[in-house]
């Protein structure tokens, strides 16, 4: 059995798992990655946007080689009620610094690329195998159990996603609660490159990211999104699960209504649905942080709840990559010292603390509760669209602009605006 023993087993071939595997294999560790899907990425989905900096730090210029969809140069944010929307629109050119760029991606294309990098570095991939349990001896994780068989390793990295059943079994991950997560549903709609270019004002390899607040999540915490891919778009809705039951609309219906909104319908018209997917988004930030280090085990990526929703940006994949890297640093260190105990592996926490992950998670600590405010998804979108309606409607003699605008501010409530504005500024 000892001949079959690996230095490290990674559970899950997502971005966190593959990044860790690549770096550990490159350093000479015997690395096994076990993935339950038929290929890396088969079970993974994303809203659609990867901030490049983390991968760029490992693979400089990766976007020239990796199957990314489009470089995001066009940002839009819309406030939306049932029939109208107000949009903030920012267009630029791709940053001269590759680390500042971001890309729309499809995971079934991106993840196999990263897995191949890890494989070329020497990591062994086993796909189509579900890890059922962990092998624990004398309180130390020393392998996995899959398909009734035991596979041994000096340590295990759990990259098994937001529903980390294995992390829960170890007592390291708390069961995710409705309060700490949202569900995302998404359609990939094929339009053809030209239509994507025309409708989103992009050309060639450039693309748009568009977030929508208000109506898409039925006036509750969440929102809508569109990311342009090469010849398709990713369109979806995210909905905070703790509000389930309060809205009369089902989550799939929210997506359907969003797609049929007058602002969105012209964008998707004539498109062909090619995939419908869903995923839970860990949005609790620091509040849901699990125990990250145990005897012979580390937890990375979504399984560790590494996700940042700042309202105007939603990030998970760059955190996954960076946490995979931090885990690899700790694992390599432990391997060199031949000590895989928790105190040896705690290098992982130090690495995370020194990285943007913990800094940003701390920075945005208060944001989830700030964003869980119905005014954000009802009163303010209605205020914005109401003001625009009055601004642009001509039906006789004009009134002073001030008189048109103030009633809308009043309706949302001056005190609310001041309070939320103040709290908003303080929470970032």
């Amino acid at each position, binding site marked *: 059995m000892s001949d079959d023993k690996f230095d490290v087993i990674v559970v899950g071939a997502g971005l966190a798992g593959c990044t860790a595997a690549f770096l550990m294999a490159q350093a000479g560790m015997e690395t096994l990655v076990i993935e*339950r899907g038929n290929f890396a990425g088969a*079970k993974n989905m*994303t809203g659609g946007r990867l901030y490049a900096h983390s991968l760029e730090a490992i693979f400089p210029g990766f976007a020239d080689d990796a199957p990314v969809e489009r470089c995001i140069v066009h940002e839009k944010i819309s406030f939306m009620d049932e029939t109208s929307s107000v949009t903030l629109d920012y267009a630029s050119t791709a940053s001269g610094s590759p680390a500042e760029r971001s890309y729309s991606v499809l995971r079934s294309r991106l993840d196999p690329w990263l897995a191949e990098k890890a494989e070329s570095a020497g990591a062994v991939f086993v796909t189509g195998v579900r890890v059922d349990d962990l092998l624990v001896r004398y309180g130390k994780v020393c392998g996995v159990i899959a398909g009734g068989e035991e596979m041994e390793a000096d340590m295990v990295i759990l990259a098994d996603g937001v529903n980390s059943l294995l992390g829960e079994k170890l007592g390291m991950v708390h069961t995710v609660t409705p309060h700490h997560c949202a*569900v995302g549903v998404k359609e990939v709609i094929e339009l053809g490159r030209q239509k994507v270019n025309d409708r989103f004002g992009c050309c060639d390899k450039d693309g748009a990211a568009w977030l929508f607040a208000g109506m898409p999540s039925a006036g509750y915490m969440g929102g809508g999104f569109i990311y342009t891919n090469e010849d398709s778009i990713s369109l979806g809705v995210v909905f905070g699960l703790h509000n389930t039951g309060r809205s009369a609309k089902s989550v799939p219906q929210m997506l359907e209504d969003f797609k049929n909104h007058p602002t969105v319908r012209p964008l998707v018209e004539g498109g062909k649905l090619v*995939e*419908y*997917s869903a995923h839970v988004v860990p949005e609790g930030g620091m509040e849901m942080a699990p125990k990250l280090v145990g005897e012979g085990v580390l937890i990375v990526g979504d399984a560790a709840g590494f996700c940042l929703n700042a309202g105007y940006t939603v990030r998970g994949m760059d955190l996954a990559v960076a946490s995979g890297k931090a885990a690899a640093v700790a694992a390599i260190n432990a391997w060199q010292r031949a000590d895989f105990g928790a105190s040896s592996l705690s290098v992982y926490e130090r690495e995370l603390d020194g990285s943007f992950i913990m800094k940003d998670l701390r920075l945005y600590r208060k944001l989830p509760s700030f964003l869980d405010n119905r005014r954000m998804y009802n009163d303010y979108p209605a205020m914005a669209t109401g003001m625009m309606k009055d601004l642009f409607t001509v039906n006789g003699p004009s009134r002073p602009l001030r008189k048109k605008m103030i009633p809308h501010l009043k309706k949302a409530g001056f005190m609310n605006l001041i309070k939320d504005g103040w709290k908003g500024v303080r929470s970032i």
Partner: protein
Amino acid sequence: MNTRVNVDVKLGVNKFFVDEGNPHIEIAENPSLQEYAKLEAACPAGLYRRDEKGAVRFDYAGCLECGTCRILCGKTIVKRWEYPNGTFGVEFRYG
């Protein structure tokens, strides 16, 4: 606008390998209907349904493996929640 969503049509474009006769999710026999209603609303695949008589009908084929039901109602409805066995379940071609 406001067309009623047909989730089955959407699931129909996906690639699934259903592990026939081997459900990865099992639900309690007489779940609280109040709790069950949450799953009817939230399950992205619309797998939690009731028939004309109001009886509970759940089908694991078509599961997108998001875990929403596990998180929302925990053990009150979902007796067992696992990932499908290796190679089975949904396979994203885009993701």
